[in-house]
């Protein structure tokens, strides 16, 4: 049997500050494991259990963020590592796309001519030739993802760490990621991949081992069925779990009073405010309905929501909220108050909504309704991303006729996804018009009274299909 690439003996990390306080509090019960060449490992567990911390510790990166110590021993070979973060942009270290591709190669100490060759090859393979001179900040979400994957591909890691890389991606983005992963896996049969993901089914049987969080530690499983997904096939043979799809009960058409509408709306790009090149948008948002907007990364879905909410200026056309007509954000306090009585919005980055004080000080709905009961005495900035997102939702006024939610399911495990589904349905049942931007196809089809697809050029009504209720899998 080949020597392990990563091997742990009675190993568990703990924050050094705890040691200063007189006691060691390891993050989990000390573990023994060995990851060998060819292993493809998946870590699964609920939000906040420490999956990302586990991955950082495995990669030897935990001490970059805080002071950590560890009990036991973790041994890893010095093979080349590659780390893919949740947000592709988190991987960027430079300003321009071309420098980003070269950065990892320079760190490997390759000669400049070889770096030039590999940069050109990676750019060609991932279709980035025309973007090399662009600033990474100015790339769309999809382009950023391709750039991050191209840089990773060029660096040619032998050990790959993947931290919920699927969570922010649309269907096309997931295909690109899976293709890049398959290419890596084929090229490195003796390599090691360790991934964290809530959605094992999206990886379609690419993992051979599973570690699942249970009773305060990681337990090894080797079947999707052990993850609570309804299949008995070993995951190496599996694909998407074979649970019967749920038929959609309703036609794709909303009815009810119009609470807001967009008329010939054309979005403005951030920064200069230049025209977004798309067909004018006409949209009616009706009370008691859930309107879901899907679309590729970087198409402008968040900008559409911000424009409807009056947080960003439109290029042309207008948004109507009853008697209020908007093209740009209101100016006076009175105008903001009038608009705020009709609209509330949860931002994609929930931290922008928080201020000083603890979770319990962030008023509006009681946060415990959204599964935050244990965290009332913490600062909102200490919460995990999924918890922050739920807190940001609880801060939205319950009496506004229009509720805009930008990717509320991002970072949520199955249990918390169910809590959010109930919350959104309850708001709609109480007469609120809900507009939801969502990448998850199954959730979109399950929740929508009216489903739209926005590809950055045109907003079109989309036929709903039967969906796989993955969030019910471990009930």
């Amino acid at each position, binding site marked *: 049997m080949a020597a392990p690439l990563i091997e742990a003996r009675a190993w568990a990390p703990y924050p050094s500050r705890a040691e200063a306080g007189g006691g060691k509090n390891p993050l989990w019960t000390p573990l023994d494991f060995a990851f060998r060449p060819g292993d493809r490992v998946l870590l699964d567990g609920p939000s906040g259990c420490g999956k990302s911390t586990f991955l950082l510790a495995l990669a030897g990166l935990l001490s970059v963020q805080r002071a950590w110590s560890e009990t036991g021993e973790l041994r890893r070979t010095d093979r080349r590592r590659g780390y893919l973060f949740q947000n592709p942009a988190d991987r960027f270290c430079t300003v321009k796309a071309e420098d980003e591709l070269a950065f990892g190669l320079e760190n490997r100490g390759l000669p*400049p001519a070889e770096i030039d060759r590999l940069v050109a090859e990676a750019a060609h393979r991932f279709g980035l030739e025309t973007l090399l001179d662009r600033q*990474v900040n100015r790339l769309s979400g999809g382009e950023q993802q391709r750039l991050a994957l191209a840089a990773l591909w060029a660096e040619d890691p032998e050990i790959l760490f993947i931290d919920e890389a699927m969570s922010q991606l649309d269907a096309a983005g997931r295909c690109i990621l899976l293709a890049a992963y398959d290419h890596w896996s084929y090229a490195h049969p003796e390599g090691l991949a360790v991934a964290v993901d809530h959605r094992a089914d999206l990886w379609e049987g690419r993992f051979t081992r599973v570690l699942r969080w249970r009773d305060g530690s990681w337990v090894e499983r080797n079947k999707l069925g052990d993850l609570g997904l309804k299949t008995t096939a070993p995951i190496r043979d599996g694909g998407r779990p074979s649970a019967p799809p749920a038929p959609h009960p309703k036609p794709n058409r909303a009815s009810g009073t119009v609470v807001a509408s967009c008329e010939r709306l054309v979005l403005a790009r951030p920064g200069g405010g230049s025209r977004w090149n798309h067909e004018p948008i006409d949209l009616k948002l009706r009370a008691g309905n859930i309107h879901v907007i899907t679309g590729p990364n970087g198409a402008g879905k968040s900008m559409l929501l911000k424009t409807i909410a009056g947080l960003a200026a439109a290029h042309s056309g207008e948004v109507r909220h009853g008697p209020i007509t908007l093209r740009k954000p209101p100016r006076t306090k*009175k105008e903001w108050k009038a608009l*705020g009585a009709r609209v509330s919005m949860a*931002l994609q980055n929930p931290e922008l909504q928080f*201020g000083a004080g603890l979770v319990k000080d962030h008023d509006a709905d009681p946060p415990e309704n959204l599964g935050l009961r244990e965290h009332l005495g913490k600062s909102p900035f200490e919460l995990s991303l999924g918890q922050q997102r739920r807190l940001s939702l609880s801060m939205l006024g319950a009496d506004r006729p229009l509720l805009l939610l930008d990717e509320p399911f991002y970072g949520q495990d199955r249990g918390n996804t169910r809590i959010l589904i109930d919350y959104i349905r309850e708001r709609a049942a109480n007469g609120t018009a809900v507009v939801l931007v969502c990448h998850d196809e199954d959730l979109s089809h399950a929740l929508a009274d009216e489903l739209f697809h926005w590809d950055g050029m045109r907003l079109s009504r989309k036929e709903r299909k039967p969906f796989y209720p993955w969030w019910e899998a471990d009930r």
Partner: protein
Amino acid sequence: MKNLHPAALTIVSLLFIIAATVVHDPLVIGGWSLIASALLLGCRFAAPRAWLIATGSGILMGIGLGVNHGLFPAPGADPYRAWAHVLRPIVLIHWSLFLSSADPVLWAESLHRFWRLPLSWTYGAQASFRFLPLLAEDKALADNWRRLRSGRKGTIVSNLIPLLVSALRSGAQSALALEARGLSPARTWRRPMKWKAQDTFYVALCLGAGAAWAFAAFKLRSGIRLWDGAF
């Protein structure tokens, strides 16, 4: 300008900035400002917008300082010296902006390759180029969100906290990314960065022009002090 060594731009800009803060003659300072102006306008990728920004903001700050001198004159203040204070912001902003016309990536690289600063500082400087515009966008969005929620923009503290956290997180994430991608002092550099004869010529030309102007101004108005020993 595009092909100049970033360190040459840094040397010239810093020397003029330091000199402008200690010299108290408006004629000298005005001349140095004109030199920076000419360079800015001649610089393909910065002019003329950069020139307008530098001149406009310098004039505004100068007016502010002038009003301040008029309202609250220092004991024994002389109006001639007050003019130097009024003109100084124009010089400082012109030269600072001229420095910013360097390619930010190359400039940051030069901090390590020429000035021997630690690599982590170099890439910290690069990260700030990337994150500052994003922070400005986040601030505008957070302000508007608070107005939408409560009609008010919120207190300075409530507005600053998320931005501060966001900036700290971005910094921590950058450090993590650098480590994850194997940043090491043993790295190679894809782009050559050599000090060439044209860099020496450029530094000599700018410093020579600055010194010549200061000398000419001294001769023109003999008796005017270039340096009075006070900062």
